[in-house]
């Protein structure tokens, strides 16, 4: 009788622990589709004294379509289109970026917290920690985010993007 009682107590204890872990996992899983919506809208980013990048991000289903252009002294020096879509197998976004007149690049991007995100080349998605090229971004407010580009863990550049109203 004593053994049965002990077994029941242990099982109930294990059940509570398992439930606790599951609940914790559910709480911490980020909703990547919702978080990406922070990018919706028009943005500008001064990349030098006379050059500015303009981004226009629109929702399309659970993904986004993006048009961008770089303008220097009133002339467009780069432009392109992007499609961003969620991949539930990866629980990350895949970004297809096409620069007009150049090739296409495939990236992956995901939020690490409500405000912080990372982006790497799609080729590195199975081993993100070994990616030589990486972007780390953070929303400082709904109208401003900062992106840092790293190569081999060294900061190459940092840009501030602000919402165009």
């Amino acid at each position: 009788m004593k053994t049965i009682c002990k077994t029941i107590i242990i099982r109930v204890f294990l059940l509570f622990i398992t439930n606790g872990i599951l609940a914790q996992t559910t709480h911490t899983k980020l909703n990547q589709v919702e978080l990406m919506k922070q990018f919706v809208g028009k943005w500008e980013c001064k990349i030098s004294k006379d050059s500015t990048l303009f981004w226009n991000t629109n929702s399309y289903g659970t993904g986004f379509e993006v048009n961008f252009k770089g303008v220097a002294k009133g002339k467009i020096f780069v432009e392109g289109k992007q499609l961003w879509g969620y991949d539930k197998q990866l629980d990350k976004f895949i970004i297809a970026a096409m620069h007009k007149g150049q090739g296409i690049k495939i990236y992956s991007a995901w939020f690490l917290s409500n405000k912080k995100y990372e982006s790497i080349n799609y080729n590195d998605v199975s081993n993100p920690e070994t990616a030589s090229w990486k972007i780390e971004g953070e929303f400082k407010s709904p109208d401003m985010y900062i992106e840092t580009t790293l190569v081999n863990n060294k900061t190459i550049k940092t840009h501030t993007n602000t919402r165009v109203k």
Partner: protein
Amino acid sequence: MDTIYKATIIVVFLFLSTYGVQAQTTQTKLNQIELMKQFLGSWKCNLSKDTTAFWETKSYGTGLENRYNYVKDGKIVDEGKQLWGYDMTIDKFYAATLPKGKDIYIDVYYFISTNKCRMYTLYDIENPEKAPVRWEIEFKSPDMFIETYISNNEPFKIRTFTRKK
């Protein structure tokens, strides 16, 4: 003197052989960017008695952008956007497809002759010959192409697209 003469003949022979092989390779290399332009325009495909697929493909730089929708009994039942861009490192196109409300996926497209294009998903890029599903498109004329889905070397779905005029 005889040895020098023989050596000279061998060197000249090897030079001519190498030149010939290089010339042959250059001749057989397909211009993927030019060949993809065969997809430009408006296309339709009768998927079943009451469902039709419509494609609208436009040029964008060296790539293509595509909008598609499936219409059943006069109503759009599926729609999406695509970006097709060339990647010179693999001498193939990546096609990013964002179906509205669904996950994004990336396919690899490349012409194997002037009128035949082969495709497989990005997941299969390391071992395309082992892809569970691949598909081929053959342009029968500038206004008609046939898309064949293949699994285990067996065709299992064939669709015919005709140009809308």
